[in-house]
């Protein structure tokens, strides 16, 4: 799930205060907590109230999109509305904001959310926890399934550091688990401390250099290679 946090209402209002008529687009995709039609409606009401305190009459309509990051789905949902509106406020993650700006070229789409991280929610826990940082160099196979990139505040590949006390991390006031102590415990349990001991050289950050463009292979046949071999 992509974990998002709504921006302060004043910050959102600052972005759209010069418009009179805005479209507010929720997203039914993977955003958590939900940012769908109901949340879009509430945001519209809040912005309307805020505008009233400034002596303005803001018109708005709330809609929702199945997935704002899918260009075809987003285009077919949004385009019938855009003629009437001066700007869009999107409740999607950053992917949705960029996509709407691409497919609706003549008006600007503004973000109502801060995109935080890819996270999970465990039953009985009151947190969205970051389990993966989509770093492009997955280590989970040698760390007992605990990620030291997302789970360690310093992203260490050869931890733990000196900032761990009784298995807790110095960041966050010793309340969160030290990923490297978790890794140690997991690997010890499976009698795989050999994996803990090994030295891991520095990451190759080319795999994480922005902007990333990974080619999509649409051709799954091997006929071409055979033809080339015949030559």
């Amino acid at each position, binding site marked *: 799930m992509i974990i998002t946090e709504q921006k302060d209402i004043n910050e959102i209002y600052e972005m759209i205060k010069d418009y009179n008529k805005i479209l507010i687009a929720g997203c039914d995709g993977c955003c958590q907590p939900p940012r769908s039609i109901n949340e879009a409606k509430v945001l519209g009401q809040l912005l309307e109230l805020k505008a009233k305190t400034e002596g303005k009459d803001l018109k708005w309509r709330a809609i929702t999109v199945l997935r704002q990051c899918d260009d075809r789905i987003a285009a077919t949902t949004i385009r019938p509305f855009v003629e009437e509106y001066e700007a869009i406020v999107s409740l999607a993650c950053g992917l949705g904001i960029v996509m709407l700006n691409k497919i609706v070229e003549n008006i600007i789409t503004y973000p109502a959310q801060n995109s935080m991280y890819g996270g999970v929610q465990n039953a009985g826990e009151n947190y969205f926890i970051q389990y993966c940082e989509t770093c492009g160099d997955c280590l989970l196979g040698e760390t007992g399934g605990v990620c030291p990139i997302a789970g360690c*505040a*310093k*992203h*260490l*590949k*050869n*931890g*733990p*550091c*000196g*900032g*761990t*006390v*009784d*298995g807790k991390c*110095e*960041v*966050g006031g010793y309340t969160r688990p030290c990923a*490297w*102590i978790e890794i*140690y415990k997991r690997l*010890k349990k499976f009698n795989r*401390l050999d994996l*803990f*001991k*090994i*030295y*891991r*050289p*520095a990451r190759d*950050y080319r795999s994480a250099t922005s902007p990333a463009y990974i080619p999509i292979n649409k051709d799954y046949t091997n006929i071409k290679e055979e033809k080339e071999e015949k030559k």
Partner: protein
Amino acid sequence: MAKRPAYSKLCQALADGHFVFTGELEPKKILTDGMEEVIHSAKEMKKTDRIIAANVTDGPQGDAYMCSLVPSFVVQRDAEIEAVWQVAVRDRNRVALFGDVLGGALLGLKNILVLTGDHTALGDNKQGRISYDLDSTQFCELLKKMIDEGTDYSGNEITDGKIEMNYGCVANPNAVGEYMEPEILKVGRKVEQGIDFIQTQTAFDIDVAKNFINELARFNVPILLGVFPMKSYGIAWYFDKYIPGVSVPKDLLNALKKAEKDNKGNKPAKYAALDKVNVEFFVPFIEEIKKNSKASGIHCMAVEYERLFAPLLDKYPDYAKNYY
């Protein structure tokens, strides 16, 4: 791989079998006057004839302080005592670390202490972005490549000259019980990456310290145990509360508090009482470490507490004067 030569006086003294002492200097948010005080401290260390080198800290607790490179050089130049240049990997990527080490080598620095560094979230510029491009073990590998192979991390050659430096890492004796094994294994990775010495975080419990040293001894790398005489109750309290994993024994805290309280308004008497508390705790502590553990020395973190050097160290041989 053949053992790296002792390029630094610290490593030479260790190789010669002396029980060594190192001190600690902390350049904070300072410029010229503050630097004078740091140099004064360093000169006092040299006067002991027992302290062979002075650590120069690099943004401890994640605070934004003067860099450690320039003061390390200034201390060597003006106080004529060798610096142990502390470098935290928190703030610099592999490009900057390489560049800094080359610069430090040009300035004649001989010792590097590799640190992860406290997270900026603990410091006074919490909004900052961390680097940790290399972690401390990977920085050890970079230093190994620079010193032993003459290249940067990617293998590009340094075109002229040879870097003559030794480097060490830190270890935390306060990782006890089930937390000791991962700490020891982690140090093992750094040993693999060619460290020349280990300076530990401070420990106050003699049994914990001895046990940890004996575990580390398997790596056959000289170990300097950290001790932290405290020049005021305030410092002891702060250390107890804010330094990861370190707790000052209650008796020691209370004794320092009492020393200050009993001598309120009388500075000389207060200092004498504080010194007495420290001497009574640390003299037998150090003696026990020297006699009954495999430690090769003591890293004394008494920053700006020069007057304690004499009562603490006088009973040990003045070996260091032969190296200055």
